[in-house]
């Protein structure tokens, strides 16, 4: 069985074959790893491979195929077969075309830092949303011109709400 695994922006091809009870041959980018694997929790796997022992946590991130991996205190976003399951055009993406700045969580709009027609640079802050007692500056992923500001200061916004559109 073959999977496309994306971690930190790098895509890898992995195929898995069961070789015995709890034993698997995992071929990753052409290299075969002989793995002793055991599920140690709903979202955890213990692996013995290549002379090391590691426990990896893999918890759903809310979208199909998207996981947060945990390994000894560090984390990484992981997508499995994302090309097959990927949703429509990504928001706040770094590709070409329209960028939509969306509220990442429920909160209140504190300040709007750009007006329709403004040119903004990559990583420039365009709006500030307060949530969990923190002010969070949302930034443009890349340079562009603001075409639409959909909210006003003081407004409460739901998660996922489009706040600013940049072309």
């Amino acid at each position, binding site marked *: *069985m073959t*999977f496309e*695994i994306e*971690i*930190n922006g*790098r895509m*890898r091809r*992995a195929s*898995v074959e069961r070789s*015995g*009870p*709890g*034993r*698997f041959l*995992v071929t*990753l980018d052409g290299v075969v*790893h002989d*793995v*002793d*694997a*055991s*599920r140690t*929790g*709903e*979202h*955890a*796997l213990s*692996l013995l*491979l290549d002379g*090391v022992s*590691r426990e*990896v*946590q*893999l*918890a*759903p991130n*809310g979208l199909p195929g998207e*996981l*947060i*991996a*945990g*390994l000894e*205190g*560090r*984390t*990484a976003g*992981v997508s*499995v077969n994302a090309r097959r399951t990927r949703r429509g055009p990504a928001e706040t993406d*770094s590709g070409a075309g329209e960028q939509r700045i969306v509220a*990442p*969580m*429920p*909160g209140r709009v504190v300040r709007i830092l750009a007006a329709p027609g403004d040119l903004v640079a*990559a*990583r420039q802050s365009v709006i500030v949303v307060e*949530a*969990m*007692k*923190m002010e*969070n500056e949302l930034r443009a992923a890349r340079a562009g011109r603001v075409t639409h500001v959909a909210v006003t200061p003081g407004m409460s916004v739901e998660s996922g709400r489009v706040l600013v559109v940049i072309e």
Partner: protein
Amino acid sequence: MKVLVANRGEIAVRVIRACREMGIPSVAVFSDCDRDARHVRDADQAIHIGPSEAAASYLRIGALLDAARQSGADAVHPGYGFLAENAAFAGACRDAGLTFIGPSPETIATMGSKTAARAAAIRAGVAVVPGLAAPLCEDAGGAAIAAAARGVGYPLLVKAVAGGGGKGMRMVDDESALAGAIRTARSEAGSAFGDSAVYFERRLEHPRHIEIQLLGDIHGTVIPFVERECSIQRRHQKVVEESPSLAVSPALRQRMASAAADVARAVGYTGAGTIEFLLDGSGEFFFLEMNTRLQVEHPVTEMVTGVDLVQWQIRIARGERLVLDADRMLAPLGHAIECRIYAEDPDRGFMPSPGLIRGLRPAAGPGIRDDGGVSAGYTVPTFYDSLMAKLIAWAPSRQQAIDRMSRALREYHVLGIRTTIPFFLWLMRQPEYVAGRYDTTYLDRVLAERAASGANTPGFSELSDRDEEIVAVAAALDAYLRATGTQAENGGPMRSRWADAARREALRG
């Protein structure tokens, strides 16, 4: 005594633990979204006080007094945040015949005004950060304001008189930015504190934030403790604290502790409180403000002195005399570090990361203390601050405490949401942190540099190629097991070997 804990999260759990150890019943309060919160489950009693918005629950004095009445509580512990430094709340408790576990409403009011607190410090003979003695007049003209600013000297800070946590505060480098800074500071202060008064304070160049914990009883005894070093701050919010400070010699400690005790005595302080100082490179220190409550970071003091500050708050409120050895309180044993584990994503600018905690295994073992407020299955709500737990490491030496903290961070599992754990692991490896060469500007400067280098900056998690491979292997196996497998398949090889044992178990009855 029966204590209403007028708070939530880890500090409510902390207070409930202290009550339980003292044989005192505790009453939790909760908002809509906190029904399943740990403090509700841990307390002996729990009262619903309103909707999730803090203003409609944890900040509603009437609801809290009602909860006390309803439950028969005769004392109130305010924790920190929410109403902990609200003189009206302390007064309302007093008026309702409840013991407020903290200082008097008058003391809270005095120290809650930054300018009044500075005046109290000056009266006690303690140096304050150079600045205005009184708030700027609402109607002061531009020329008068500019003259006042020149008198303080640039760079300066415009600060809200009622401020805290960096709100209502603006840095000003020269006169051109002064009027705008005053305007925005007043506006922020007005909306955050209901008081738009501001004043000026000189901005010190590379200060350390050093604070002195103290306890005062109602019989006039004030005991100061070894300092806490809180200079690791992000946007004026402490994220890592430790005790003792590498920047404080025993002689300086004595001077700072005496100064802190003098201020506390000058205002007749009772209960637990903290005097914050700025320490400059030359070893001079200046009174910054007083927090008239328990601090988030109180555990580091507890770890190096062995004193339970929360139990002492309660004992002081019961009228007991402080019977601590004052010299021992200034002689730290070993070293303690605290990391505040927030539900925030350090790789996305510390954006809050609320949501369902799918799994939780705090660190434990030698030298580790976990003061947590959440549990697996709990959804971190969006309504309050995102502190999930405080992880404290103690060891004989600072380097060993750093090594122990790193070990503990590696074994701390939080599944389902992002936390600041990867950031702390990174920080514990930074040469500046390891050497103790940092001041309050360190972290913001480093984070700004990382942000400026843009998309090329690796995340705090810094997975090696091999680690990434291992994660990829795990993800592939996870997908394979879920795609092909029954639970049994998922269980791996040993499950089958255990099936017998489990079946045998089933017969025991």
